[in-house]
């Protein structure tokens, strides 16, 4: 058993009890809403265009949202313990 896996299991257990650091709540919420860990501002997308980069692929937000429900992630994120 890798040591990192032990830590990950312990963290996942803490989350099930509602202990979720704010940063993980924010990232989780972004991913469920828009498929990316960060909400990319409009200005950044414009900058891509100016720099000659191709448009970003379509974000699979709808599918991620559905899977988050099925896996139980959405419910998990609702738990909160101070």
């Amino acid at each position, binding site marked *: 058993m890798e040591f990192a896996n032990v830590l990950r299991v312990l963290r*996942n257990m803490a989350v099930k009890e509602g202990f979720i650091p704010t940063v993980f709540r924010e990232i989780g919420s972004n991913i469920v809403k828009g498929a*990316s860990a960060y909400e990319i501002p409009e200005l950044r997308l414009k900058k891509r265009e100016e720099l000659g980069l191709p448009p970003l692929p*379509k974000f*699979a937000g709808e599918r991620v949202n559905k899977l988050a429900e099925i896996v139980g992630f959405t419910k998990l994120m609702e738990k909160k313990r101070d």
Partner: protein
Amino acid sequence: MPEPTYLLYLGCVIPYRVLSYEISARKVAGKLGIKLVEMPEFNCCGLPLDPVSHEMMLVLSAQNLCLAEQKGLNIMTLCPGCNGTLRKVNKTLKEDKALRDKVNGYLKEVDMQFKGTIDVKHFIQVLLEDVGIEKIRNSIQKPLSSLKVAEHYGCHILRPRDYMGLDNPESPTVLKRLIEATGAKCLDYMNELECCGAPIIGVNDKIPLQLARDKLTHLKEAGVEALITICPSCYTMFDVNQPRIERLFNEQFGIPVLHYSELLALAMGFSPKDLALDEHRVKLNGIIERL
């Protein structure tokens, strides 16, 4: 020999804040005959959510692998974190039938199925395995022989060894060999393999900023003129956060940070303007003037 073709997986950090990395990678790939195909759809690899929900990480990663399978193409990543996650999930699901069945049970609900037919590589692995050092050396138009740089691998490209298999995590040489192919001198410095601190900056900023400051101090002591990374998160720690570290510790570093593909692109003859190097927080003026 057919040109190597990959589905380019950008991850979340690069489109958000490190566009110059993407620009250089695309230019270098084009010059070396690596064909890059855009992902048909995108979602996060799942890495940031592994500490929260391992299952959510698995399905996020598996979705990307399924998209690549549908296209019949291997994935190339620029971010070692995405690379490590996608590689680990790919290998695990290929080998663990019970877990694969479980994940496929979830994926079935969105009309997807993981089959285990593709592979995942980081850009430097593609450069090493599909292009080769000799071809890279032959592509150099402006050898960077006057430049003294140093390497920073970051954590994810080397570990866990069983999943990555790129190099010896305790004593790697691949990045140094790639750097030296550009003509630049790659200097050694103390604690080269230490983490940049980025993974915990969201929950605690004191420790990561101290870690990055220690590395910058060692780089300065070694006389390094630029730090070469292959990771957008490490880059963010050393470049974007460098002015903050200087203010916090009342020290001056002024060490520019380049992704390997940017260094290679400069050596290939692309101009700093072509590469949007003015996007970097720590300015490269001193280096660029000499090139």
